[in-house]
């Protein structure tokens, strides 16, 4: 797998830290809206073991309009600063807009994380032109920044998700994105209710079996909240449990708020899977 300038082993499990330059995202509620605060968070997550930062300038839920100019203004400067300060770090930008993609790639972004499933069909061309990686998500074709409302699928949900992400991956390939730079993502909760998201999660191995690397974005989402009946500030345990299961089923990239905790879970699962030696084994062995 290659994410822009960075190449990773086939069994690497990567932590992608969420960095929001938004005043209103559901979890951090504007804590890193100021560019300096966002930069501080980048420094922190690097220290905690993040492989990737995912910089976003527009919250996913409905809310105040953020036009292209405003989104560019929020993210491009930060991308350039991170590129300068942390050359070893993969820089991803969470955007669905080709114009924004163009600007951030020029500033050093390695990955375009299209959380809205190809709403702007020109985004793949931008990724191809800059040799950037692209995250191909499934949203069922919904408008960006809308909530699911009575969304139903009259066909197997995993078949629907696979059609969406594989179709997107093929479009990216056809546009010229490198094969090793295409990642698929079922997009937990996007265009899906909690039942849908749970079904996709428990069958994540079917996505892994396609051969494309799988990204999961689980962190503190509503499906965790609705499953455990917990408000947004009490969803870490549910998130980590889902992270462990997803890792066991073969997901490769974890888009998260809590980096250190996720890293530990992934290390533990990697060891359980036999892909990582224990850190220190002396008990009964001395």
């Amino acid at each position, binding site marked *: 797998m290659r994410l822009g300038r960075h190449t990773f082993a086939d069994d690497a499990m990567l932590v992608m830290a969420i960095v929001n330059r938004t005043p209103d995202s559901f979890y951090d509620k504007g804590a890193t809206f100021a560019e300096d605060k966002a930069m501080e968070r980048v420094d922190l997550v690097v220290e905690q073991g993040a492989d990737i930062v995912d910089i976003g300038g527009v919250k996913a839920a409905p*809310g105040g309009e953020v036009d292209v100019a405003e989104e560019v203004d929020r993210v491009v400067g930060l991308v350039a600063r991170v590129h300068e300060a942390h050359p070893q770090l993969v820089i991803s930008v969470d955007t669905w807009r080709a114009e924004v993609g163009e600007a951030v790639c020029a500033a050093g972004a390695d990955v375009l994380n299209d959380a809205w499933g190809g709403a702007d069909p020109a985004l793949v061309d931008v990724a191809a032109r800059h040799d950037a990686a692209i995250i191909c998500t499934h949203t069922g074709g919904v408008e960006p920044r809308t909530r699911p*409302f*009575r969304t*139903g699928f009259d*066909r*197997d949900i995993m078949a629907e998700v696979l059609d969406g992400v594989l179709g997107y991956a093929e479009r990216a390939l056809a546009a010229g994105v490198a094969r090793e730079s295409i990642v698929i993502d079922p997009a937990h909760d996007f265009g899906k209710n909690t*039942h849908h998201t749970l079904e996709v999660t428990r069958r994540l191995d079917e996505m892994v079996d396609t051969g494309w690397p799988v990204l999961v974005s689980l962190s503190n989402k509503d499906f965790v909240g609705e499953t455990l009946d917990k408000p947004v500030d009490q969803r870490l345990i549910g998130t980590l449990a889902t992270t462990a299961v997803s890792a066991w089923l073969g997901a490769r990239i974890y888009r998260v708020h809590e980096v250190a905790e996720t890293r530990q879970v992934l290390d533990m699962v990697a060891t359980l899977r036999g892909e990582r030696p224990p850190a220190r084994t002396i008990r009964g062995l001395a």
Partner: protein
Amino acid sequence: MSVVAAVVVPAAPALLPGIGGAADPLADLRERARQLVLETAVTKGVTRVVVIGAGESTRTWPTDAPSGAARFTTGRVPDGALPTDVEIGRMFAPSGGGELVLHSIASDATPQECAQLGRELADGPSTLLVCVADGPATLTDKAPGHLQLDAAPFALELADALAAGDTPALAALDPATCERLWMRGRPALQVLAAAAPGLRGELVSEEAPFGVQYLLARWV
């Protein structure tokens, strides 16, 4: 004879068994709707119950058509499964005795097409019409369709129309406005307007716990 009574019930998928999870947040609403339909059918002594709800197309459905609730879980929906709104209506229909008719109206049906179907459904034996429809889903910041400032006054007018049995008001609902306010029950309400003129309206309850207006109304 004709439509001698009508009941308006909500259309939330979470009313279907199992969809709302262990807490079953709409259990109370489900029970009140079931009671209202039953009481109205018994009181009016109807011989036919007609369910009308929005769906992909306008057609009748076998009364034993399979459930489509899996569209909200695994997506493994059997062929010929009911549209959700019609399935919700079937759940509320009294069991045993009398004829049951299940009918969907296309979500994009024009007011004229709705009126035409309403007149056709009215032509029959003593009938209770179960109309499955909600008000707007844009009543709060956290509502499915986010907040639209005109949703609240719109919802108020809708509640008033149901309370008054105001068929012209329902017939006049503008499809584009309803779509903008995420109000998917518009066609079913416009079928009701044409099928049940001259009945006395009563708004039994109105609530919007999740930013979607749920109405229970009885027309007799």
